[in-house]
């Protein structure tokens, strides 16, 4: 009954170079504007704040001056074997067959939050209240992503709407919609990052940057031992950062290259 790891022709994935992230939050700002995430009066309670893309500050656990810090942006991992999809009672979320993006159909969602309880990455967010755009902020709503009412779960979709729009653009220009260039479909966070820390593309397409990067000896994924097979890879040349990507017993070695494509 446990979900199988699904393989598709395309596999949209992300590679985040942690050695280049300054934690500035430009990606988070872009994400919100792109996806019509409603603002909140107070977002200091991070357990109630909608951050489809959340930036963690990691520590190597040592004292000053040996201490080292790294910022880790965490979008939805778009797991190959998602914890959330199997558990949804109403099929409001599914592993998309067109690139393996885990969708969230908010009009179907009944808000039981079982998917949130299942996700070890906390990538899912519940609309505790109705969204509110004070003043004229609703004027800035993008037509590409629907607004969500209270009582439903939402999450990062790898800006799936951009993929749909890119395909339509290709059709309108008599091009093959399934053979678009890497640059035609980029997530909002990836294109925004001033440091170029976020790469996005088809993990299976050798022409795409993420394909090679995901096979780097410095690549790792979060909580890989759970078997979720995330489609988001992280890169760091620092061993302690890679080790923080998963739970290890003290006597276990880490830092081995991961090749699981």
């Amino acid at each position, binding site marked *: 009954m446990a979900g199988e790891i699904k393989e598709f022709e395309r596999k949209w994935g992300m590679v985040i*170079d942690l050695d280049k992230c300054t934690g500035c939050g*430009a990606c988070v700002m872009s994400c919100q504007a792109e996806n019509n995430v409603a603002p909140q009066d107070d977002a200091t309670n991070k357990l109630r704040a909608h951050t489809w893309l959340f930036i963690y500050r990691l520590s190597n656990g040592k004292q000053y001056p040996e201490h080292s810090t790294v910022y880790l942006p965490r979008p939805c991992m778009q797991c190959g074997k998602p914890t959330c999809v199997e558990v949804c009672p109403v099929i409001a979320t599914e592993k998309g067959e067109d690139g393996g993006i885990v969708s969230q159909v908010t009009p179907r969602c009944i808000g039981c939050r079982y998917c949130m309880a299942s996700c070890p990455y906390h990538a899912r967010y519940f609309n505790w209240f109705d969204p509110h755009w*004070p003043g004229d*902020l609703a004027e800035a709503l993008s037509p590409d992503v629907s607004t969500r009412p209270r009582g439903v779960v939402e999450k990062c979709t790898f800006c799936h709407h951009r993929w749909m729009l890119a395909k339509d653009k290709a059709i309108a220009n008599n091009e093959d919609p399934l053979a678009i260039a890497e640059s035609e479909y980029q997530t909002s966070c990836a294109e925004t990052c001033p440091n170029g820390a976020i*790469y996005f593309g088809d993990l299976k397409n050798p022409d795409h940057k993420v394909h090679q990067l995901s096979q780097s000896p410095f690549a790792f994924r979060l909580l890989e031992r759970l078997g979720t097979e995330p489609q988001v890879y992280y890169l760091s040349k620092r061993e302690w950062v890679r080790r923080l990507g998963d739970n290890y017993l003290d006597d276990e070695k880490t830092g081995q290259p991961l090749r699981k494509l």
Partner: protein
Amino acid sequence: MERRGFLKFALGGVVGAVASPMIWTTLYDLAYWTQNWGWIPRLKKGDSEYIATVSKICPGGTPILVRLVGGRVIRTLGNPANDISEGGLTPLAASEGQLLYTESRIKRPLLRAPDGGYRVISWEKAEGILKEKTRAAKESCAFISGDASSSLNDLFSAFLVANGSLDYFFMPNEQNAAEKAWELMGGRGRVGYDLEKSDYVLSIGANIMESWGTVARNRKIFKNTHPTDAERTMTLVFAGAMQNNTAVVSDLWLPTLPGTEAILGMGICRELVSRGMGKSLKGIEEFTKIVQPYTLEMLKLECGILPDRFHTIIEGLLQAKRPLVLAGSSMGHGGGAAPIMAAIAANMLLGRLGQDGNMIDLPLPRKCLALAQAYRRAHANDLVDFSQKIAEGKKTAPKLLFLYEANPLYAWPKNARIQECLDAIDYKISFSGFWDETSAQCDLVLPSALGLERFDDVYTPYGSGFENWTLAKPVAEPRYQARPAGEVIIALAEELGLNLGVSDVPSLLISRAKDIGADFQEYLENGLTYRTSARYDNDWFHLPSGILREAMTSKIETGIRLLPHVVYGIGSPSTGIPPYANRIIADYQLKQNLTVAQMNTETARKLDVVHGEKVKLETDNGSIDVVIALFEGIMTGVVSVTAGLGHTEFDRYSINKGDNILNLTHVHIEAGTGLPIWSDSGVKVVKG
């Protein structure tokens, strides 16, 4: 039997109802209703366009693309076609679209009534008041500009000069201190930082990846020199008290206490001199004497540096082909000229000053209008000095003050005495996009069109490595009754019969374009950044002596040091915290309405405080309530607090979110240069 008959009738009714679509369609309709609740805004479709322009709220002049749908501004994106940023976007520039619509925008001209409240008035009436007040004040007027990189400053300053006043001021910025340092050391133009060509960048105190200079460009350079899948082509070293945004990606972090940037710079100079660098430089003997006290021992004591890392850096600087030393304050301003002078001297010793990949002498901006003050003159004006003198009664307060997107009340420490200065001025007029702290004390508040609604430009912002110019153009009609301040001033000058030599803002910008050789029309259309390779040669420079020696005598804080941490995402004094930005304020920066003070375990142990404890930070200047958060990436004896919090005006996203760090710091004067310094401060941690 009646009852039984009725029961049958009812049963038939139920069967009939169940068999009809009534119940089932209603169930569906109810669900559809929940999917389209009327109180939740609906999306509006339309055709998309992307217009290239430049961010006017991001001090680094980030190029942007504005997305419009059906003529409405939706959001800003990075502009991949512009090689300044190559598509990158700072968090502040990312919020520019939403800022058009916030509640804190000033919608109509407001006039303060005698009871202190504000009345909405018409633009005609507002213009009448403007005219009357300006005419009455004559030369007794002053102007504060919140936008240091705009050519509009020439317009405003010309207007001021035409009225007979030279009191033109800028909001706090590092530019003033840097230009001073540059000038003192023989620079003929403006200091430029050729980061692109450098292969070793040592940043002393300057948070170059977050808030110093042309951030989007700095970060693009970092991106290109630090490829993910290849060896880096530039080494980035950061010296500062905390693992901030720059330190986390830098290749080496050299901890140094806040306020000791100049000492570290001198220490580096001493080390370079002792290794025989700069022998042929003029004044090297004198300079050798000046740097003599800054031994490694002293650096360890005063800056808290780690000797091995210090030596690695010296070696790195010596071995690099095109090393660059630059300096700035952790706050982005208020650090004085001494650190920058020391950095310039270090570059001279390295033999790189004026060369590729180092500090270069960019041309001085020429005036667009004959009447305007010269660049150096305008940037030499010191608002702190002006304000303090007025407060002390050593100077007569002007009768009239214009503020343009400026919020000095928020942006300076209390003892800059801005409040007293404002109180002493008869009439204050604010052109502002947002309801900020200073506007809330002005007599006339005029809604200023924002950067996306007006013609404007960004002309060689501080931190640039070359002379550059980007045109900002209106992508949408000004919302509400906002008007471009430049046009209002031109109209006012006409009314008063003053000839500024310009008929409207675009023609001012055209003359700027012509002056630097850009084709206005071309850049209006493509929205790109025009750049020139103009620079002065470097034979005018000389090693600093007297002034630097004097500047180095400025007071150094002891005890627990306060380290302000400036992050762009939280907005600027003139924007407040943008609507979506509160999500990027981390829980180690703000907790509910309390500012968070970060320190390491060792400091906490010394102070006998624990994680999560509420304490007061106190200085002679004031105190703020904070909650302690432990963070090991910070030097022992240093408390870091995020700047940009603690607004009392703007909207729900800014008001009462933490405390303003400037309530703690205080201004003191740098010896020799006379520049105000306020970025460093000692602080007391008071329990209970």
